[in-house]
């Protein structure tokens, strides 16, 4: 335990004093300022003359404004935060020849990985909480609406999901730092994987769905076919944690959504019954809807860890 806390303290100090942290912080500050300004302004103009809808505060995070919404921004660039903080965790120790003496101290080897992961996760939490608070604060000014408890609760859950999400990428980066001896190799490997998961998996999902259940382009498609097409596309796209995260946060941030599915087949009677429930879901129910996504995200992180441990325990510590 003391090994873990010593590693954690040292790594945290390293993170907060490092150039890359300053860089990330500046970048994030800039983006959140711009985003808060454009979405806040846009929302105010749109809502002029209307009664403010319930939970309007959350729109700050989901409406796209000029470029993209915060939720989209984190889904897309959040991985980079995790990767940047973790890609050289272990191989840097190896390169500067500190690994051999580090493992020669009376600590368990896994506390090195754990300490580094927890320090990274703390840094990520600080960064993400910073963004959310900054946008909330500026939004408060722009919109002139004080968020209710429901909204605060949803933002808190959103923050937790986002930290877990970036935590997955951090775990992945640490895994790469164990597997690859060169820091540049490890950085390139994780970037390649990120590009693959961000761009090619959605593309591949469409391709797979098209080939398994082709939807005719001409004429009216059977609703059944469209539905199966969508289901397959969705299942394949869940290979990427980015899809998991996007779906999970859209439910949490938009209480009007009752399912993560984009397309729902409803019969006339169901539609009738649904129309009677055109109210926002309570937070607890929204959380229930996304629980499987979260479990999957955490499970993926654990898989990264399990492989990291296994590889790190077997690795020779000698540098020569």
């Amino acid at each position, binding site marked *: 335990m003391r090994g873990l806390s010593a590693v954690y303290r040292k790594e945290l100090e390293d993170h907060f004093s490092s150039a890359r942290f300053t860089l990330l912080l500046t970048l994030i500050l800039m983006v959140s300022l711009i985003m808060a300004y454009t979405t806040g302004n846009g929302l105010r103009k749109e809502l002029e003359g209307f009664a403010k809808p319930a939970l309007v505060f959350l729109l700050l995070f989901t409406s796209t404004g000029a470029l993209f919404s915060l939720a989209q921004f984190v889904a897309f660039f959040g991985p980079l935060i995790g990767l940047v903080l973790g890609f050289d965790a272990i191989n840097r120790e190896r390169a500067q020849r500190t690994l051999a003496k580090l493992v*020669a101290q009376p600590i368990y080897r896994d506390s090195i990985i754990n300490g580094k992961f927890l320090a990274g996760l703390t840094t990520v939490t600080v960064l993400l909480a910073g963004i959310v608070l900054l946008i909330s604060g500026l939004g408060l000014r722009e919109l002139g609406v004080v968020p209710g408890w429901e909204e605060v609760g949803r933002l808190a859950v959103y923050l937790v999901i986002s930290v877990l999400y970036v935590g997955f990428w951090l775990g992945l980066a640490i895994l790469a730092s164990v597997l690859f001896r060169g820091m540049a190799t490890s950085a390139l490997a994780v970037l390649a994987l990120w590009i693959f998961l961000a761009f090619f998996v959605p593309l591949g999902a469409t391709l797979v769905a098209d080939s398994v259940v082709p939807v005719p382009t001409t004429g009216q498609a059977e609703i059944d076919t469209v539905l199966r097409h969508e289901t397959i596309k969705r299942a394949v796209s869940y290979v990427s944690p980015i899809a998991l995260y996007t779906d999970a946060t859209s439910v949490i941030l938009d209480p009007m959504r009752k399912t993560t599915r984009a397309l729902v087949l409803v019969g006339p009677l169901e539609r009738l019954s649904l129309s009677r429930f055109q109210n926002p879901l309570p937070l607890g129910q929204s959380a229930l809807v996304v629980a499987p996504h979260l479990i999957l995200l955490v499970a993926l992180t654990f898989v990264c860890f399990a492989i990291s441990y296994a590889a790190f325990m077997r690795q020779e510590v*000698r540098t020569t």
Partner: protein
Amino acid sequence: MEPVIEMRDLTKRYGDQVAVDRVTLHVPPGEIFGFLGPNGAGKTTTILMLLGLSEPTSGWARICGLDPTRAPVKVKRISGYLPEAVGFYEDMTAIDNLRYVARLNGIQDSQARMRIAERLALVGLADEGKKRVGAYSRGMRQRLGIAEVLLKDPRVVFLDEPTVGLDPDGTQRMLEMIQSLSRERGITVFFSSHLLDQVQRISARVGIMLKGRLVAVGSIQELGQQSLGVGQERYTLEEVYMRYFRQGPMAAA
């Protein structure tokens, strides 16, 4: 007296290759043991197994009666290890580097401050403690390494090629320091080297490793008599070593 370091038939294989082949050895407390051999003879691998950093394929080792494979943390609590060309966190000062190691050893910060100052003075770095290690010379790094190893008050230290790359002056200081560890603190020193005259100067006994096998153990005088025959008044380690080296690893069996 119970040996501090004990190993029997210690073996490490990497696939078909045998890195360490059935090494049996005892080192009594307080002794400076010189572990000799050309590069790639299996010296570092042996040290890693003694520290529990690498698992023996067969055979066993004990450090002060503890099994490094079963209880690595306990072994590492009482033994210090200075790897060959040890590295430090370059952006941190020497004191910060040492404080990190002290924390890893569970030494309270208040106590660590005193120990760090004392160990730095011991290795002659008292005035450079606040400098970044990035600005240190090779010799200073190596001395800082000794200070770091001593932080935990070890009963045994393993020094892997501690004098490689040092200038004559640095080498001299390092050797004196190693001697004082044994004399003044009663620490058992197990150090590997391929620089024979240095080993001869400070070790009571030496072991010679060739291609993973320990071909000879004993004082230099004993080994000289064994390999070169009785008659000479003094044997230099160089003569002894070259004799074994020419005979090759099979001679001892």
